[in-house]
């Protein structure tokens, strides 16, 4: 293993160099720039494969390697090295990021073919890959934060990629800013967590802070505070309640971006953070409970929103939010859930990326139309897209043997695990997880059949849908295969769980409150029911081209359960009021207060100016009077002095 560890820095380095060349190179790189981007990403993927195969070849207890690069900062008692931590968890992410990332790079070559700024797009994509790999490979919270904000930056740049020269340019820019700022709110949590960690353990690297000694030295309130701060960070990055509002708007970016960043990789970084920080969370049961609650709430929130969205990308975004809710829920369940959280993250990365790219392919075919009410009957025209998206659909529904089944089922089982002293938890969260699966089945089926099903197309005028170029559908095929088979490959026999054990620890086996077969069966039943309901509503009956008014719940879901209105009322308006207050205060109190000083001086000056009559005799009188006063004073003082 040690002979190839030197390659690890190049995982990050190659995409970074690619990004630098593409962004600084200017128009000279326009012609071949996109291929450079693909090559950089692919090279990273190759390195990732090499590392992973070597890792598999090493004994389980040697699978965590910290590779020191250079001392990053060392001052005032804080010593942080710039280093890489290679272990099964980070390598899993490396594989996901580089492999899916490369596929999406390839896809983008065709998807962005007509965009004059394709080179810049690939520069940003490479930047994202580099930042994401920094995030997952970091061996300290501080370096993780670099990647954390780096992906935020890349996300900002890519959401706002079309921020000029289009009618929607300003909205795209606003969406990008919204994403970054909401992420920053989460980042506050990470900064605070680092401050707490440093105060508590005196270090920020994983090796020290996550060791048993360090975690053991933290008091429970401290650990809870750290856990909650980390959760805040994860909420921001992973669009979890209450920081979920940016994800829907983030769909303003090009579709490959949505697939890579806002579905497969970046948004799952929060889950990674939770799993990585497992030891701390385990020391803070309250924080864990909050994590689970946040996951459960978001799970339902996203699912409900997903049922009402007509925009195909926004529906998928809501689905992403909901699926990450599952992962979050699992991450809050302790070692029993970590492996399934990551497993679901992995399979979700494949099938959701496939679904998004499929959506991109559909949009490509339909002149960038995203309204599903204007689709319908596309299966004949886009057969490859139809099949690959169908695989993704089955996977997300959790139909065995597709990959979603293996991971999601694990999470649902884990949710039903009893917790000592809190018997209600297993029932509540287990039920929520099953309910979520049912709603997921409903909205995904709705999405699938509104797009591909139905006999009567509801297209706009002059639409001639056609299958995309091979550059676009080959990635779809790869992802479709992944969606279908990955779960089974890794899930049967617990291969993946064992693989992750060196990192997340071995979970003691408990029995769920219900027998496992019962859970599986119940889940499948509600999923099929949900899917059938959607099939009846959107495939059998006709879909209206204009959205019906719908019930109160539908209208609320369409407006993201009023998340923006809530933010506006609860945060933005008060904040703006405070800002106005500060502004007025600065002008009228502080500035004017200081201004009063010279005003007073000039007022005195004006008063004294009157004495300057210009009449010599007045001045002489002044002098003589002064002499007189001095004489009197001297006399008095001398008299007093004489008296003593």
């Amino acid at each position: 293993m040690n002979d190839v560890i030197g390659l690890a820095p190049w995982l990050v380095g190659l995409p970074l160099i690619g990004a630098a060349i593409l962004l600084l190179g200017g128009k000279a790189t326009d012609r071949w720039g996109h291929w450079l981007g693909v090559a950089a990403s692919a090279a990273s993927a190759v390195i990732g494969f090499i590392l992973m195969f070597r890792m598999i070849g090493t004994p389980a207890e040697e699978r965590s390697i910290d590779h020191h690069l250079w001392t990053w900062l060392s001052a005032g008692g804080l010593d942080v090295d710039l280093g890489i931590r290679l272990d099964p968890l980070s390598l899993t992410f490396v594989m996901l990021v580089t492999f899916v990332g490369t596929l999406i790079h390839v896809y983008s070559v065709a998807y962005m073919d007509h965009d004059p700024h394709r080179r810049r797009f690939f520069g940003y994509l490479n930047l994202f890959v580099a930042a994401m790999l920094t995030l997952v490979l970091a061996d300290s919270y501080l370096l993780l934060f670099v990647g954390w904000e780096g992906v935020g930056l890349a996300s900002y740049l890519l959401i706002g990629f079309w921020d000029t020269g289009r009618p929607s340019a300003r909205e795209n820019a606003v969406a990008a800013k919204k994403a970054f700022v909401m992420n920053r709110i989460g980042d506050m949590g990470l900064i605070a967590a680092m401050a707490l960690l440093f105060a508590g353990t005196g270090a920020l690297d994983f090796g020290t802070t996550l060791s048993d000694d360090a975690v053991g030295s933290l008091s429970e309130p401290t650990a809870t505070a750290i856990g909650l701060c980390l959760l805040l960070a994860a909420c921001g990055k992973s669009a979890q309640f209450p920081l979920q509002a940016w994800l829907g708007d983030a769909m303003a970016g090009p579709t490959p971006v949505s697939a890579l960043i806002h579905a497969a990789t970046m948004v799952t970084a929060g889950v990674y953070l939770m799993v990585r920080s497992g030891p701390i969370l385990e020391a803070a049961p309250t924080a864990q409970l909050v994590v689970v609650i946040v996951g459960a709430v978001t799970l339902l929130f996203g699912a409900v929103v997903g049922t009402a969205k007509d925009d195909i990308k926004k529906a998928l975004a809501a689905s992403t939010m909901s699926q990450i809710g599952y992962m979050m829920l699992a991450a809050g369940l302790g070692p029993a859930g970590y492996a399934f959280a990551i497993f679901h993250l992995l399979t979700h990365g494949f099938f959701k990326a496939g679904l998004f790219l499929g959506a991109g392919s559909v949009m490509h075919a339909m002149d960038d139309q995203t309204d599903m009410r204007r689709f319908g009957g596309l299966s004949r025209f886009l057969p490859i897209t139809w099949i690959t998206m169908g695989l993704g659909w089955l996977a997300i529904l959790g139909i065995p043997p597709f990959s979603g089944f293996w991971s999601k089922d694990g999470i649902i089982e884990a949710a039903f695990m009893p917790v000592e002293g809190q018997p209600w938890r297993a029932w509540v969260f287990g039920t929520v997880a099953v309910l979520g699966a049912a709603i997921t089945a409903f909205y995904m089926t709705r999405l699938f059949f509104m797009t591909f099903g139905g006999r009567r197309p509801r297209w706009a005028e002059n639409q001639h849908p056609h299958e995309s170029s091979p550059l676009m559908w080959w990635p779809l095929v790869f992802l479709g295969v992944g969606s279908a088979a990955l779960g089974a490959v890794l899930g049967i026999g617990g291969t993946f769980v064992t693989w992750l054990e060196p990192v997340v620890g071995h979970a003691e086996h408990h029995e769920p409150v219900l027998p496992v077969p019962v859970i599986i069966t119940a889940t499948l039943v509600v999923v099929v029911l949900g899917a059938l309901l959607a099939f009846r509503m959107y495939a059998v009956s006709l879909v209206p081209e204009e959205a019906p008014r719908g019930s109160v719940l539908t209208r609320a879901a369409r407006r993201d359960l009023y998340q923006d209105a809530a933010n506006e009322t609860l945060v933005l308006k008060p904040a703006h009021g405070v800002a106005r207050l500060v502004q007025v205060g600065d002008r009228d109190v502080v500035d004017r207060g200081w201004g009063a000083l010279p005003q007073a001086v000039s007022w005195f000056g004006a008063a004294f100016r009157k004495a300057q009559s210009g009449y010599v005799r007045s001045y002489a009188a002044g002098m003589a009077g002064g002499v007189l006063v001095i004489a009197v004073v001297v006399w008095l003082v001398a008299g007093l002095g004489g008296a003593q």
Partner: protein
Amino acid sequence: MDITNYVVLAAVLFAIGATTVLLRRNAIVVFMGVELMLNATNLAFVTFARMHGDLTGQVLAFFVMVVAAAEVVVGLAIIVTIFRTRRSASVDDVNLLRG
């Protein structure tokens, strides 16, 4: 008689001279007030010389006279010059110092 009477006389004359400076408007009379003050000082010097038996007082008085003479020369020249340009010898007419 006490020799200090001379000093008191000097003080009174000095005060009258000062008052003249303050009250009269004619520059020449103002100047005379200054001269009166100088003379009063001289009287005090001479008296003190006698009182202490030291001639330095008289020497000082002598110097005061000389300086006063020089001052008168220049001062009167200034008055004449001002009169030439402004046709007035009133000190109140020269109020260029007004702030």
